[in-house]
């Protein structure tokens, strides 16, 4: 922490793994004030410093860990951080966001961001404790899983309070689904960020700090936090009580009722055995306690232990909807214990539940359609409903073992390119990023958000729960059109809704707050982010000003992808959602109309200031303070056409 900064710590670490050097660099004021933090920092730094043609596994790719100005300041759910890189899964922007305690630990140590470049000759870990920042030998850790790595580091440094971000075998083996784990069970999971970390031979970062930060107006920080919690308790009462009680596993029951539960590799939206995977069996037998991340107002994380049966003794935390569907309904399986242990295995190997489950869903469907045979699967039987092979498949995936392991390690887009034929149809990816969460056919705006997400198939750029949680009256008042509340229908208003949510959701990724603090309560999105930023940093932010910053970052992210050849063609959903109607559940008969989707794209690009191909126009770039980006796009021949 430096004396002149409030909110932000004021220092960035620049780590060069090739040279083995670490530099402490003052935080640039323009970066701080105009990009806020977290994903805002990362996307700008990536655009500026990672040029087209860079090899994702080469020394010039950056792996950036960033916190926000509100990290560690006691505002609700302030314990998040974002990891960004040039992703080899998408070939474009890749980022992942995680909770736990790591963001706060590095911030309290005095660092807003850690920018890692280069490739280390030998495995290393980065040790951070206040002023002490060192690269240390990690050869004794290489090959070990995340949990064991964390234990060893805590023991070696006699500090049970340290936070450890680490890769497991999956990251070391440069697997597409590799995540960076922190605090045992929290994951910066998407985009294969774990694979980039593994390619750099960076095994872990440990962080602990007491140097601390300053906040500008402590009384207002505290007052607005209490006010906020009271607002949610009052205007989002059901959400506050139920989510605190059950955590994300409640979405299994919820999405089953919405007809949105990914089933049989996303073929269907409701599962005949969903009741075996929901909160009733989970809380009856397995959950012993609830935990939370740093600053959390919900304690959504179920800590479980299996007390009898074939998996007796298995424990884990952060039981997640994605594991229950990923190792459950997506594969036609209904064994809750297999799903729970599958989640813990992913935490140990360092695997993204979503990406692992998606490539497995791909493999399962290919196998059941006869596209993959037992020869391709090394003899494993991937029939729908066969849960007995799930843990073995995860192990082989993490370790790139055998023909199957090698194939799955590529991720389903590249794997289906290798297999050819209809395999591609079963790859549920957008820009190569494997999909999670819910079915786009029954939540049309949210589904559209997956398509245009700047990091590829992703539900969190918009996390568009307001489509089903705002009342139509709230939708009318805050977004402008009540029709957006009809989740089954595509209306032009949905493009505006997607832009609005992308912008307010960017604020979660910039302040670094968990997205669960903004659900059904409209004021929570609009009013509190600028109040918190102003109270913590002392800089005067407004709702409108933050909208401009969001426009700026979303556009620079788009530019990052555009200079790598991405455009409109990459903003579509997998064919399944256009071509197949749901045959079960409350979404029966629903599919996405290509014609209407195209209209949404046209409208979305227009209001974003991009041309019909989705390329940012100079007029918009200059409006949001990105003239230099316009110049660069023009030089590379990717600038959007002005006239429509």
């Amino acid at each position: 922490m430096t004396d002149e900064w409030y909110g932000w710590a004021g220092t960035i670490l620049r780590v060069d793994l090739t040279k083995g050097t670490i530099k402490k660099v003052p935080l640039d004021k323009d970066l701080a004030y105009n990009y806020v933090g977290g994903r805002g920092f990362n996307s700008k730094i990536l655009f500026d410093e990672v040029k087209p043609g860079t090899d994702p596994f080469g020394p010039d790719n950056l792996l950036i860990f960033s916190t926000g100005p509100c990290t560690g300041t006691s505002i609700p759910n302030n314990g998040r951080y974002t990891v960004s890189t040039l992703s080899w899964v998408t070939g474009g922007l890749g980022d992942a966001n995680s909770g736990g305690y790591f963001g706060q630990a590095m911030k309290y140590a005095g660092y807003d961001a850690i920018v890692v470049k280069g490739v280390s000759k030998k495995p290393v870990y980065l040790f951070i404790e206040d002023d002490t920042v060192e690269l240390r030998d990690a050869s004794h850790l290489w090959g070990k899983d995340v949990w064991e790595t964390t234990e060893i580091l805590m023991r070696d440094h006699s500090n049970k309070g340290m936070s450890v971000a680490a890769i497991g075998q999956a990251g070391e083996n440069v697997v597409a689904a590799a995540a960076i784990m922190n605090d045992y069970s929290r994951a910066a999971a998407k985009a294969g960020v774990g694979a980039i970390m593994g390619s750099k031979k960076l095994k872990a970062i440990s962080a602990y700090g007491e140097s601390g930060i300053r906040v500008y107006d402590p009384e207002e920080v505290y007052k607005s936090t209490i006010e906020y919690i009271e607002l949610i308790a009052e205007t989002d009462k059901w959400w506050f009580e139920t989510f605190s009680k059950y955590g994300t596993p409640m979405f299994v029951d919820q999405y089953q009722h919405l007809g949105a539960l990914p089933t049989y590799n996303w073929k269907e939206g409701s599962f005949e055995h969903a009741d075996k995977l929901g909160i009733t069996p989970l809380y009856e037998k397995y959950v012993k306690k609830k935990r939370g991340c740093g600053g959390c107002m919900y304690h959504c994380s179920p800590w479980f232990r299996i007390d009898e049966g074939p998996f007796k003794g298995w424990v884990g935390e952060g039981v997640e909807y994605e594991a229950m569907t990923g190792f459950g309904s997506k594969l036609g399986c209904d064994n809750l214990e297999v799903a729970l242990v599958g989640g813990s295995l992913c935490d140990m190997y360092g695997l993204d539940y979503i990406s692992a489950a998606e490539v497995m869903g791909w493999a399962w469907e290919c196998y059941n359609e006869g596209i993959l045979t037992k020869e391709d699967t090394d003899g494993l039987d991937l029939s729908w409903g066969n849960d007995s092979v799930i843990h073995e498949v995860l192990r082989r995936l993490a370790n790139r073992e055998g023909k199957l392991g090698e194939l799955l390690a590529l991720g389903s887009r590249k794997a289906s390119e290798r297999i050819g034929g209809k395999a591609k149809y079963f790859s549920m990816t957008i820009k190569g990023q494997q999909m999670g969460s819910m079915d786009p056919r029954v939540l049309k705006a949210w589904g559209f958000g997956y398509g245009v997400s700047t990091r590829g198939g992703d539900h969190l750029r918009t996390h568009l729960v307001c489509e089903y949680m705002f009342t139509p009256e709230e939708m009318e008042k805050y977004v402008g059109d009540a029709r957006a509340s009809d989740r089954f229908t595509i209306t032009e208003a949905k493009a505006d809704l997607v832009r609005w949510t992308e912008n307010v959701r960017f604020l979660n990724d910039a302040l670094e707050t968990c997205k669960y603090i903004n659900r059904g309560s409209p004021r929570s999105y609009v009013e509190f982010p600028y109040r918190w930023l102003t109270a913590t940093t002392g800089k005067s932010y407004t709702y409108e000003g933050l909208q401009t910053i969001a426009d700026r970052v979303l556009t620079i992210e788009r530019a990052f992808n555009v200079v790598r050849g991405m455009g409109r063609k990459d903003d579509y959903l997998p064919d399944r959602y256009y071509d197949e109607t749901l045959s079960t559940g409350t979404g029966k008969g629903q599919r996405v109309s290509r014609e209407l989707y195209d209209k949404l794209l046209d409208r979305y690009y227009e209001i974003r200031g991009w041309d019909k191909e989705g390329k940012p126009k100079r007029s918009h770039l200059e409006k949001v303070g990105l003239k230099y980006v316009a110049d660069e796009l023009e030089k590379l021949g990717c600038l959007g056409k002005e006239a429509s």
Partner: protein
Amino acid sequence: MSEKEKLYKAIERAGLGDGLIGRSHGLILEALTTGDFCKSEIFDKVKGKNYLTAPQQVIRATDQLVEIGAVKAVGKRKTEYAEIGEEEEVYSITDRGRILLEDLRAKFSTFER
């Protein structure tokens, strides 16, 4: 203060003025004139009207009606919606709710869109 005055004061206090009480609430109140129901049952009655397509919209709109005293909980019932709760509250329309319904009917020619 009359019941009607109390109603509109409650709406203001809850921050639900300025059009935030509307057709959705009219539909819910109408459903409750035919009996006492829990949220998932109300949803089944009103779904498809006024863009109401998810139970969560009805959950929140009903909670808003509880907050302004237009509706009150009178019991509990077990339903299949585990994500709403182990048991769901059963709701009944109040006198204030009937006044609100009348005003909403006067304001909107129809609650369906």
